[in-house]
């Protein structure tokens, strides 16, 4: 869906938009991600950030602190020890905040689902996930697709309804 602000205006300096559209457009176009990687998925995430796939063309750039971040990509195996830290990082992010769960481990435990005594079987057991990206690890294209899905989700948000995630 193309929003009002994505169309071209040549004959006027005034743009009239709904507050919803304006905010959503601003939010989805500059999703600053928390600079945070967990395991092998983080390597793919870094590749996605690098010049070839160029996350920055979608307005995604890493921030070193959760207080300046909009999205956290859970890129890798979530151990029970790390789960507590992830929860704390997530709580430090300002609203509105989004979560992409990247890869099988973060989605559901992945190969550790049965004998991983140290692994949390899905990061959604501690924080609410917006988009799940499958793969082991997902290719950069898959992560980009996940990001586009998240943008789509944000585009349809409204100020009148509370984010339900």
């Amino acid at each position, binding site marked *: 869906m193309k929003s009002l602000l994505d169309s071209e205006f040549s004959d006027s300096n005034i743009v009239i938009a709904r507050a919803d559209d304006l905010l959503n457009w601003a939010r989805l176009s500059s999703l600053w991600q928390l600079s945070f990687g967990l395991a092998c998925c983080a390597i793919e995430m870094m590749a996605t950030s690098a010049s070839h796939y160029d996350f920055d063309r979608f307005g995604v750039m890493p921030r070193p602190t959760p207080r300046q971040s909009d999205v956290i990509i859970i890129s890798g195996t979530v151990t029970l020890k790390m789960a507590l830290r992830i929860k704390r990082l997530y709580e430090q992010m300002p609203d509105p905040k989004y979560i992409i769960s990247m890869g099988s481990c973060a989605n559901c435990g992945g190969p550790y689902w049965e004998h991983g*005594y140290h692994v949390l079987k899905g990061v959604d057991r501690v924080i609410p996930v917006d988009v799940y990206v499958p793969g082991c690890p997902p290719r950069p294209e898959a992560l980009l697709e996940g990001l586009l899905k998240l943008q789509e989700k944000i585009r349809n948000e409204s100020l009148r309804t509370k984010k339900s995630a």
Partner: protein
Amino acid sequence: MKEAQEIFDILKEKFGESVIEINTETPVEPIITVHPLKIHEIGEFLRTNEDLYFDSLMNLSGVDDANGEKVKDDQEFDTISGGTLSVYYHLHSVKHNHKITLKVSTGREKPEVESVESVWKCADWHEREAYDMFGIIFLNHPDLRRILMPYDWEEGSYPLRKDYKNPEFYKGMKVPY
């Protein structure tokens, strides 16, 4: 450079009963079994003796031999009673370029082994790992606490033991799938 049999003979002569046996039937390297409460003394000798000079502890690992009797606990869960836990030491001498593997076995109910931390400094974290995963107590270790699992992980719960049972919850998080 010395062969495993020569090293065994030297140890046997010096420590007598504390050096139990040599197994040369192993696929890779012969294994010398020694007494768990003499490993520090033997390690110190292997480390300092000019002809042996094992200055490098390449690896130290715990093993659950699972050779005890299989019994059901009150919740019908398989546990192992009796038998042994073992610790393996892989030594290398950079000076003489020879290797040897040491093994100690200790009772599962009260697994106590002397620490070799004061002989090879790197044994510190290796022993903590063996303690963390198998519950082997290293006597005279300066800082024996869990290293990989959380510090407040269930007391007496050691994940790599063959009869390990995962807890249902850790800090409110469900552990099983």
